[in-house]
């Protein structure tokens, strides 16, 4: 056998392989990672629309069921983007197979990009699936498609990054579950998925404005109806700022080898 030299034959193949592996990882369990969140969102839609459709009108001329759909899409998109990177990393760490990635010449930036891209794809795929299932039941306008795509992309990237941070930080499944249930879940549910913040008392309206999830959902919803609780430009700035800040923290962690390399 001829021995190889130490030059890396291709710079893009390494991160592309990791990205492909991460995609296949969630696709192999698509019932759990795609079908299940779609079904959950559909159940939310059926129950809430049944209970509240005749009692609540959040935006003028927009039925509550239609109002609900973008919120549910974004909620599932965010949760699944987070789940993709965080669960992959915590599983690899607990099972020990993360060593197969750490032994490779992949740079910290390539590591980040591959995990992030796979999270974004899963988030967008789940979101799109919920949209296509929902339009069988509800008429939903697409007033500003570019805003819809922008917030879907930024939201999934933000939560994918958050998932990498959580996956690196957590040492056991229990810590990850705590992160998911005590941070991600409350921030999502209290962000205006099911309501407009204008329906809240003034104090909680102010509190909501400190929640970055609110801006992701409000900006995304603006893309559908052309109306929202705040300007989409403000939402864009807030979401971008959070994404940059989290990406910076995440890259710092990866570069230093925090909890991955001793």
């Amino acid at each position, binding site marked *: 056998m001829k021995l*190889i030299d130490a030059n890396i034959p291709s710079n893009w193949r390494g991160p592309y392989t990791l990205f492909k592996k991460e995609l296949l990882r969630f696709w192999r369990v698509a019932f759990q990672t795609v079908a299940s969140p779609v079904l959950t969102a559909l159940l939310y839609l059926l129950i809430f629309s049944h209970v509240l459709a005749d009692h609540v009108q959040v935006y003028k001329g927009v039925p509550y069921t239609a109002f609900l759909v973008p919120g549910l899409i974004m909620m599932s998109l965010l949760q699944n983007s987070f789940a993709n990177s965080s669960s992959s990393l915590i599983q690899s760490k607990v099972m020990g197979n993360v060593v197969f990635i750490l032994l490779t010449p992949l740079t910290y930036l390539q590591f980040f990009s591959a995990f992030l891209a796979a999270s974004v794809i899963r988030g967008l795929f789940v979101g799109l699936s919920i949209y296509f299932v929902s339009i069988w039941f509800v008429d939903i306008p697409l007033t500003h498609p570019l805003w819809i795509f922008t917030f879907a992309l930024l939201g999934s990237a933000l939560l994918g990054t958050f998932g990498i941070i959580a996956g690196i930080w957590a040492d056991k499944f229990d810590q990850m579950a705590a992160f998911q249930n005590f941070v991600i879940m409350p921030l999502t549910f209290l962000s205006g998925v099911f309501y407009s913040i204008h329906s809240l008392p003034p104090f909680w309206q102010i509190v909501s404005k400190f929640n970055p999830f609110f801006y992701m959902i409000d900006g995304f919803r603006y893309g559908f109806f052309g109306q929202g609780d705040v300007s989409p430009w403000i939402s864009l700035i807030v979401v971008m700022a959070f994404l940059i800040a989290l990406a910076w923290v995440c890259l710092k962690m990866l570069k230093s080898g925090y909890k991955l*390399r001793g």
Partner: protein
Amino acid sequence: MKTPAIQIHDVHKQFGQLNALNGIDLTIEQGEFFALLGPNGAGKSTLINIMAGLLKPTVGHVRIMGHDVIESYQQARMSLGVVPQELVFDPFFNVREMLRFQAGYFGRGPENDAWVDEVIEGLGLTDKAHTNMRKLSGGMKRRALIAQALAHRPPVIVLDEPTAGVDVELRQMLWSFIKQLNREGHTIILTTHYLEEAEALCERVAMMKQGKIVALDTTANLLKSHAGKNLRLTLKGGQLPPALLPMLKHGELGVFTLALSDLKEIEFALAELRKANVDIEDMQLIEVDLEDVFMSLVGGL
């Protein structure tokens, strides 16, 4: 002159108050079959993890094929294949997929598939190539781990106790495969608890104790430096006369091994046995092996 496969210069590693490595200096030439021996906690795995980039040395430098593991980590890792001690695996994929992914992380694409198939065949994994990793037996998982370390065709291969918990047949098969890799030019560094393996396979040995190298020489020189013979006696009645106790190295179930510094001591031993009226069932004169050297250098911890 060829670049050494591994150069370790004054490496220290500290974990809090614990000095896991205390100034390791070691050079391993290309094509060597090298053994790193030592009791648990001696620092072997820490040293391997530093070579692999999983740990950073507190002080010192490590180069793989001339590439610094920190400054030129990509080239260093390209040159190194590590077989971890634990049976770790990814439960989502089958053997062939895992190997192709592993090669892909190193930038190797479809042009490398023939090599992956060669490794699969060489390690007797052909029947299991499409089997999910979690469905493999322990022995098969061990083979798959070795295959993963080889997937990107590294010139230097580190095997951290690769035969721990492996049956005799598989052990023989693994060693014949690894010997073949060594013949083809790969540098092999192995840690093992089976000292007879190191003695049979490795040209050079480093013995570690408490984070230091306490012996570094060719296997032949180490054995020569501890020249001497052992007398193994199987006694009826199972009692060794007290006069022979200072020579006793090991004894159980009526079989006693006595260390001889001189062959004349055989006469003394036999005389003492006669005096004590102890009958001899069997008697063997044995050469010193690596285990004796190991015990005299790192034993008595």
